């Protein structure tokens, strides 16, 4: 029962959604629309489950004094801080349970949630991702060794695209006469993006889509059951 009913729910819901595409009339269209709204609500609870699970895992690490446990206290504190001020005084367009917190907003210039978001969260996020600029450079040093034709194509395509999108690329080939304009670096970059890159991306998209379609069918038909847990 604990496995058969969920499998039946998955089958029925999946089949109704697919049928509603071909018969968009009552009752399929209506049920499908309602199911998609339900999905949004349950997915919202799933996100909250994820956050609470993170809280639980960190609490476990602290309680059992696992390696670097002191740092996880900060995770919990910052989580509690962000959630509390968000729920108490709301966000930019939403009041919290204590209203809009005008007194605090007048003092710090904005709502506390937005203050924390703009000054701490956004800076942390942007720096964390910008850090990848350094690592991507070292990855490029290792990947861009023209040993084979394949790696040479990778190297040439990356360099041409990067050069073509900078002012340097434009300056390097800006002197070319009108008859050789197709060799202008920005135009080569545009050509690479528009044709061979699109072709490669299209092949990947089609291949991946067949994989997703196959997996969806396996789930709907109950062949793939790993999402239920256990064997």
């Amino acid at each position: 029962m604990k496995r058969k009913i969920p499998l039946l729910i998955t089958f029925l819901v999946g089949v109704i959604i697919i049928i509603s595409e071909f018969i968009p009339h009552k009752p399929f269209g209506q049920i499908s629309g309602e199911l998609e709204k339900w999905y949004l609500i349950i997915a919202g609870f799933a996100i909250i489950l994820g956050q609470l699970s993170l809280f639980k895992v960190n609490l476990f690490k602290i309680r059992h004094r696992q390696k670097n446990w002191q740092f996880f206290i900060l995770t919990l504190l910052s989580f509690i801080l962000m959630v509390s001020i968000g729920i108490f005084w709301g966000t930019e367009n939403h009041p919290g349970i204590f209203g809009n917190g005008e007194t605090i907003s007048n003092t710090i210039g904005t709502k506390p949630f937005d203050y924390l978001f703009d000054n701490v969260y956004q800076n942390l996020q942007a720096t964390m991702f910008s850090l990848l600029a350094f690592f991507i450079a070292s990855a490029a040093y290792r990947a861009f060794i023209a040993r084979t034709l394949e790696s040479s194509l990778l190297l040439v395509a990356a360099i041409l695209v990067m050069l073509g999108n900078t002012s340097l690329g434009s300056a390097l080939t800006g002197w070319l006469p009108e008859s050789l304009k197709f060799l202008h670096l920005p135009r080569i970059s545009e050509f690479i993006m528009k044709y061979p890159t699109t072709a490669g991306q299209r092949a990947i998209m089609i291949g991946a889509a067949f994989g997703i379609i196959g997996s969806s069918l396996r789930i709907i038909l109950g062949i793939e059951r790993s999402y239920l847990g256990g064997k």
Partner: protein
Amino acid sequence: MEHFFSVLGIWLGVLFTFAIFSFLYKDNPVYKVAEQIFVGLSAGYWFVYTIYFILIPNLFDPLINDFAGNWIKLIPAVLGIMMLMRLMPKTGWVSRFPIALVIGTTSGVFFLRYLKSDVINQLTATMMNPFTGGDWVVIIGQIMLIVGTLTGVIYFYFSKKHEGAFGATAKVGIYFLMISFGAAFGYTAMARISLLIGRLQFLLGDWLGIISP
């Protein structure tokens, strides 16, 4: 007072920027502090976002404002609470029911969405006359588009051994995929560098005032 908090905000930003950049030297406690604060704030942000932008408009507001017309939303609400029971090991199995509904809906939606947008639409866009629509550069490009897509798809067919004419075709597909990966890498590298430039602008402009923002 507002000016003080504005300056404090910039200093907080600078502090955390340097804390994250300290990882370039090596993994250190300062970086770990910033990293964990980022994880906590990120989780907290999405928690609040989910409440204000998903649950309140789609569940709580309709139930409070017109219960008679929206009582059916109690079903996903109950399923949502059942989902949260996964946090307790003894009642974790209850979450299988809402998960089944989410997985079933996702499978149905993905089946249709990917079939339409990533298979039919992409194949339709590839089925064109390459010899129309412009000068010789465009014609070469369009031929490359057709050949690249077909050979790329052939490369992804692993049920047949890649040898002979089939293997040679798949090899051409690899070349197109490599160009695609190279271009994607170039774009990613540029996006990351532009983020780095943004951080430098923040440090040199907003913080030190050496350059105008």
